[in-house]
């Protein structure tokens, strides 16, 4: 019996939050290191979410909607900063008034001019920083929208191939070793046979054993996405591959047949 099978009861109880503290801590330690148990936990939570959904029926009262609307109106997510121009209008010069008499007054005027110049420079710097901030915010929003579109399961994904050719299973892995970021897209994958699942593998450049990089099931069109699976730090990749694996049992090393493999950049 594998360690995962032994832990199956504990995982079910953990997903329910029904483990005692000591057992929970022990299992959490194991979960930090075990990809297949984390995957099983996600599946268990998925099953349990369906149990939760069986409660569907009662509608919240209208006052609950109004309460939320009032709360979000009172807490705008992007509060507008006071425009720089408004603050520039209130300069030290107009606030302090014009000094009337003698050398002391002249001295004060000179100090005032110096402060005005400093004030103006600071405002320019502030305006420049605001512009940079707004520009970066806009770029970030664009990036968010791009990623959201790429990952949206409802987005239409059409692959174009040479006329007359039958679409072949394909995948594209985009891997950033420094930050352990991995995005993988697959298309035209054959439907899964019963009790099988696809698994993505990272082949390290140092020739060591392949590293599990996520289990997945394609949608009805054969498309699938894997985003940032848990990976060890600082692994240089030589290649990626997808295999067809038994759904149950360990997923720590490939047991099944390769479906698509990388061809390098």
């Amino acid at each position: 019996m594998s360690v995962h099978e032994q832990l199956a009861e504990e995982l079910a109880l953990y997903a329910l939050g029904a483990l005692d503290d000591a057992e929970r801590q022990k299992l959490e330690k194991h979960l930090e290191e075990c990809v297949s148990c984390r995957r099983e936990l996600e599946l268990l939570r998925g099953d349990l979410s369906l149990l939760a959904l069986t409660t569907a029926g009662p509608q919240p009262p209208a006052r609950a909607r109004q309460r939320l609307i009032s709360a979000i109106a009172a807490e705008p997510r992007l509060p507008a900063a006071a425009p720089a121009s408004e603050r520039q209008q209130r300069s030290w010069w107009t606030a302090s008034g014009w000094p009337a008499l003698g050398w002391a007054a002249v001295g004060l005027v000179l100090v005032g001019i110096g402060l005005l110049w400093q004030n103006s420079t600071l405002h320019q710097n502030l305006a420049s920083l605001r512009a940079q901030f707004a520009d970066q915010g806009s770029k970030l929003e664009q990036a968010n929208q791009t990623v959201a579109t790429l990952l949206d399961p409802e987005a239409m994904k059409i692959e174009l191939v040479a006329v007359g050719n039958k679409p072949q299973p394909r995948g594209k892995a985009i891997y950033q070793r420094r930050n352990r970021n991995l995005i993988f897209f697959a298309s035209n994958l054959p439907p899964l046979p019963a009790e099988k699942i696809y698994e993505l593998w990272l082949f390290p450049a140092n020739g060591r054993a392949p590293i599990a990089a996520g289990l997945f099931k394609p949608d009805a069109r054969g498309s699938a996405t894997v985003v940032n699976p848990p990976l060890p730090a600082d692994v240089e990749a030589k290649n990626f591959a997808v295999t067809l694996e038994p759904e149950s049992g360990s997923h720590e090393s490939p047991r099944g047949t390769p479906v698509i493999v990388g061809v390098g950049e």
Partner: protein
Amino acid sequence: MPSADPNAMTSDMALVTAIRSGDQGAMKALYDRYSSIVYSVALRVLQDTGAAEDVLQDIFMQLWRNPGAFDASRGNMAAWLAVIARNRAIDALRRRRPEDDIEEVAVSVEHDLVSEADRSRIMDKVRGALQAMPAPQRSALEMAYFEGLTHSEIAGKTGEPLGTVKTRIRAGLLSLRKVLAA
């Protein structure tokens, strides 16, 4: 009603993206789509309409403050919200601080739950699976899930051995999965 929602064709991710930009209308559309799920789950656990409304408000305000907590890799929005609603309601029931951050909850559901019709079809299967379970098995599963009891507490309440309770819960979940896979 979701069917009257003018944004019914807008995807969940598109709404989340709009909420990221501070779009209050998108937040209202998301609320209209999923508030009954969150409220029903919280009401089932808490058995108190006021407390269920508090959980509802708390979850949607968290989404408003941090819409990035949900992304497609966390699974289906309906399922994700149902799990978070259940967890928050149990926390409220047991008068404890929330145990997990909404950003840490990942849920994997293979079924399509986007439309009410899809959800209703799957729910019929799940309710059928629950009805088909032996009563002690269903009861152990429901006590753990909807009352937030640990296996020791269930054993104490029912007078059954701890191992039996564990096995029943596991068997209940397995039979649920079997019915869903069919």
